[in-house]
């Protein structure tokens, strides 16, 4: 067993996702934020990338970086693409904010070949201890909001996501569990006691042909 240590100028969780994207792929990044992942993929992987971002400010920032980004609601924006437009659709720390995740994944199976999903693992021992000892809804570095001001309308655990992926008809191609701090460029891949120790779960999933 090895604990791979990575460092790079983009966040470790983004870097881990990026490692899964083959050279020259076409990529749609849903909730692309400031475009760090897209920019990295365009530069280092030669991908044809498009992002969708709700925030006007962030979308404008991405375009100013030379990225192709649409400002809008990803739930609507995914509907206009022709079938099989993308090799990879990325949902990086976005799923926990989506109102109808099953519907979204259904839409994504039409436009993309594979989907990469990452989310903060709610069953991390820190969250469990927080709830157990304090009796309060966990507030962590990964999920830094209170129950009343969080954009994260869902909490997802690694076992929850495995079941969800299966229930919506996807196969899990790869599961990577990582431990990293939210803004950190370094971190490590977790191989045992993932459910307890991983701060993020990253999945590559696809619909069976």
């Amino acid at each position: 067993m090895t604990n791979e240590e990575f460092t790079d100028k983009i966040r470790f969780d983004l870097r881990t996702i990026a490692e899964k994207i083959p050279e020259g792929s076409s990529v749609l990044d849903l909730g692309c934020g400031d475009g760090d992942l897209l920019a990295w993929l365009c530069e280092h992987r030669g991908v044809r990338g498009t992002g969708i971002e709700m925030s006007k400010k962030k979308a404008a920032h991405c375009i100013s970086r030379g990225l192709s980004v649409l400002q809008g609601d990803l739930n609507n924006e995914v509907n206009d693409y022709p079938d099989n437009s993308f090799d990879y659709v990325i949902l990086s720390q976005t799923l926990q904010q989506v109102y109808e995740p099953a519907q979204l994944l259904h839409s994504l199976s039409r436009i993309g070949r594979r989907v990469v999903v990452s989310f903060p693992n709610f069953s991390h021992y820190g969250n469990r201890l927080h709830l157990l000892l304090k009796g309060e809804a966990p507030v962590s570095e990964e999920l830094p909001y209170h129950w009343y001001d969080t954009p994260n309308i869902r909490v997802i655990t690694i076992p929850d996501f495995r079941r969800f992926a299966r229930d919506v008809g996807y196969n899990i191609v790869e599961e990577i569990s990582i431990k990293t701090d939210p803004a950190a460029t370094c971190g490590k891949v977790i191989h045992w006691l993932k459910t307890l120790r991983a701060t993020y779960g990253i999945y590559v999933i696809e619909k069976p042909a």
Partner: protein
Amino acid sequence: MNRLIVEKEFFTFAEDEPMQLDSGLTLSPVTIAWERIGELNEAGDNAILITHAFSGDSHVTGYYTTDEKDEKPGWWDYLIGPGRAIDTNKYCVICPNILGSCMGSTGPASIDSARKKPWALDFPMLTIGDMVKAQKALVDHLGITRLRAVIGGSVGGMQVLEWCVRYPAMVDAAVPIATTMRHSALAIAFNEIARQAIMADPHWNNGSYYDGEHPSMGLAIARMVGHVTYLSDEAMRRKFGRRLQNKKEFSFGFDADFQIESYLRHQGTKFVNRFDANSLLYITRAADYFNAAERLAACGPLTGGPEAAIKYLVISYSTDWLYPTYQSRELVHTLKRSSQNVSFVEIESDCGHDAFLIPEPTLPELMRGFLAGVKP
């Protein structure tokens, strides 16, 4: 002060073989006024075409040598020039005046060489497509084989879209700003009011007014209506509110008591001095007829192959009620469906439709970054 000096030039074509128009009619000869900033490179692939809005002209940036000291520079001066967002040290910027206008290109006020008098209403009806076809003749004449980008706002944005459907293989990137694939009923309605104001002026005389009194009142009213559509409720509230013009009391008459009245009258009068009423009729009609929706849907890479691929940046403004953001989103959806590479953002502004002409930091930042990512 080191002023950017530009010169208006003229290109005349279709002298022997008349230009074929979308209406089935022809026009001969055709003159296009145009200005250039920056040099075309050896490969001929660094040209950017700027298409202007309905009442605009070729004077997109800089100053003429004949300008007075207090003269304003061209209408997109904050965006275009050496070192600016559309950097004329890197790009060769071309801005033609549209066909049908009265700013140097052939239009209804031009002399019909056959009859030795102004065309007036004998001028053939034009489309946005005809305007673009004339621009293509200029671009060909200049030895430009492909355009790095076509950029324009409002009716200029329509020309951008027309370029994309007519000559997709020549266009690397397109930036339609504050525009639409087709006029809504609201946009046609305001154009119709503007036209009716002109045609109701007794001096209009069925378009034949060039040797007498011009329909100045009608044209001024048309411009007043236009200006309301270019502003927004927010901008008018901020700029004018209910404030009175140089007075503390109502006049209890029909003078311009309110600042907004005075502003509109001023805009109307100013416009009369520089624009031709018949040109307004022709150009607004062309804008009303314009519809690129189906053609855009049919000409992306999905059906047209990689040659048809154009990199788009669509921009709308949050308080534009003439071409509201939903119309830009419709454009974006159409482009996505045809597999085009499209970026979109709505810029927050309270300045309404006119916002694209008003200096602010977002548009230049977007433009600079977007153009840097466009490869010939």
